[in-house]
């Protein structure tokens, strides 16, 4: 028989501490949809996504009701569309519209994969797809885009870095009439994982199986609450508590992943061990750091606390899952985290501190609102800095900044839903124009020579 305390602990985690499964993401390969005729390719893409994922939302809801655990998002990731475009040529926006139509048929929250992998250079289809991103993110509501511009193995493609600065800026401008939502759905990666279930950066890598179920867990509220119950513990004890909590959270993720995989008859891929915050109070990664003993997130000590948290989450989670992947770590998206928003508003959390934090957490500069007059070159330089951290440390880093067109420091941008809202944060405006305009490639670092 189960222990009564264990039963109530589980119920408390779900009811009071926002424990949930953040996403069940079905990865679908579109490689067999390639066709030299773009209209035929679009038909195949639509047909395959709908055929594979038609029961995804219902299955997620069934599991949710049976197990009593909320499953917030049901999503789809697909093969980077640039690869399909390489075969067909033509107008990439046809694919964007096709994907949106498929999303509306199957009812998922988001679809990721309007993507290109250009860490070493542009292949056929890559540049055309990237240049279409601003319009694609404007004419669709549920499509997410990502571009990988660097990796530890290849170095950083500075031509792509330059281009992406311009694309992020353009994307904000064309969606200025809807609070610059475009760049909130666009991630620029270094070392992008090919099995990541989280948006906006999810895509289905070319080495993945035909169809796969990946699950992203969450639970910052549970971790914070566990730490708050040991107020006088030393740091070793806190690390142990985070590990134990992460284990429990991940076991639930693995259970849901197995069940979804069985019911949909699709192989299980990975569980992504992530602490993903939401704007709901009590579901914040920043508040975990503050619970460890910081007056506010952004204070000196933040990077150390985050390093401990990130590591303990992995150590606890890795034993709880048969296969771990994706981003796996703590997320620090500013506009999606109530504690980060407060810290950014008060000026305690600055972009330089966030950059340092990205060296020890799972992703990068995420959901940061920057002044609308920021030049493309500055955005490119932010991307280059972040990619350099990822490249040298053999980790994923990413940039998702949102230039708030017509707004300046002190103003706020409101996206609503999981994307939240955020204050415009000040950034260094000295020009990196010459550096960015040089183009070329930052060679792969010594760390890449492991053979």
């Amino acid at each position, binding site marked *: 028989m189960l222990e*009564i305390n264990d039963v109530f602990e589980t119920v408390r985690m779900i009811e009071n501490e926002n424990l949930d499964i953040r996403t069940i993401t079905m990865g679908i390969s579109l490689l067999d949809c390639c066709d030299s005729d773009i209209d035929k390719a679009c038909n195949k893409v639509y047909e395959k996504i709908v055929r594979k994922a038609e029961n995804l939302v219902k299955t997620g809801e069934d599991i949710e009701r049976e197990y009593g*655990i909320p499953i917030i998002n049901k999503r789809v990731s697909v093969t980077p569309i640039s690869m399909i475009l390489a075969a067909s040529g033509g107008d990439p926006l046809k694919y964007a519209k096709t994907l949106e139509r498929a999303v509306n048929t199957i009812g998922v929250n988001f679809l990721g994969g309007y993507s290109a992998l250009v860490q070493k250079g542009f292949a056929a289809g890559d540049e055309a797809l990237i240049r279409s991103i601003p319009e694609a993110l404007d004419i669709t509501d549920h499509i997410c885009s990502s571009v990988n511009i660097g990796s530890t193995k290849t170095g950083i493609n500075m031509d792509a870095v330059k281009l992406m600065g311009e694309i992020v800026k353009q994307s904000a401008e064309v969606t200025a009439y809807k609070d610059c939502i475009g760049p909130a759905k666009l991630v620029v990666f270094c070392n992008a994982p090919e099995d990541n279930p989280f948006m906006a950066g999810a895509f289905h890598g070319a080495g993945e199986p035909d169809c796969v179920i990946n699950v992203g867990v969450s639970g910052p509220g549970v971790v914070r609450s566990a730490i708050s119950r040991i107020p006088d513990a030393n740091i070793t004890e806190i690390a142990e508590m985070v590990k134990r909590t992460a284990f429990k959270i991940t076991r*639930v993720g693995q259970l849901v992943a197995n069940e979804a995989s069985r019911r949909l008859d699709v192989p299980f891929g990975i569980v992504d061990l992530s602490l993903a915050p939401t704007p709901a109070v009590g579901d914040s990664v920043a508040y975990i750091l503050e619970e460890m003993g910081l007056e506010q997130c952004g204070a000196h000590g933040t990077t150390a606390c985050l390093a401990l948290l990130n590591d303990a989450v992995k150590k606890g989670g890795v034993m709880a899952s048969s296969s771990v992947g994706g981003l796996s770590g703590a997320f620090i998206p500013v506009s999606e985290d109530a504690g980060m928003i407060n810290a950014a508003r008060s000026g305690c959390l600055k972009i330089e501190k966030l950059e340092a934090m990205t060296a020890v957490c799972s992703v990068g500069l995420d959901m940061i609102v920057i002044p609308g007059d920021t030049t493309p070159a500055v955005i490119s330089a932010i991307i280059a800095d972040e990619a350099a951290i990822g490249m040298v440390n053999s980790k994923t880093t990413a940039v998702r900044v949102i230039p708030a067109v017509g707004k300046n420091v002190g103003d706020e941008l409101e996206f609503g839903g999981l994307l939240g809202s955020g204050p415009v944060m000040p950034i260094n405006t000295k020009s990196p124009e010459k550096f960015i305009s040089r183009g070329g490639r930052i060679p792969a670092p010594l760390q890449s020579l492991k053979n």
Partner: protein
Amino acid sequence: MRAVITVVGKDKVGICAKTSTLCAEHNVNISAVSQNIFDDLFCMVMLVETDGLDIPFGDFADILAKEGRDMGLDIHAMHEDIFNAMHKI
């Protein structure tokens, strides 16, 4: 399958009766019950067998939750596996 029903709320007459009646009405067999009162707070955990359930499990969970709200109680019905996954290796 086996499920766990948890009931938490201010103690009053008829909590056990109401919950057990709902189980009986929907052909759910109660295998074990553990119950305690802490500071006037009634806490009960029931392990039940739902193979004979006459409606989908999700609907049954919704009925329990609604009856619970009407009596000022928190009632949850969840698949047993979620507790086993979290607390047993």
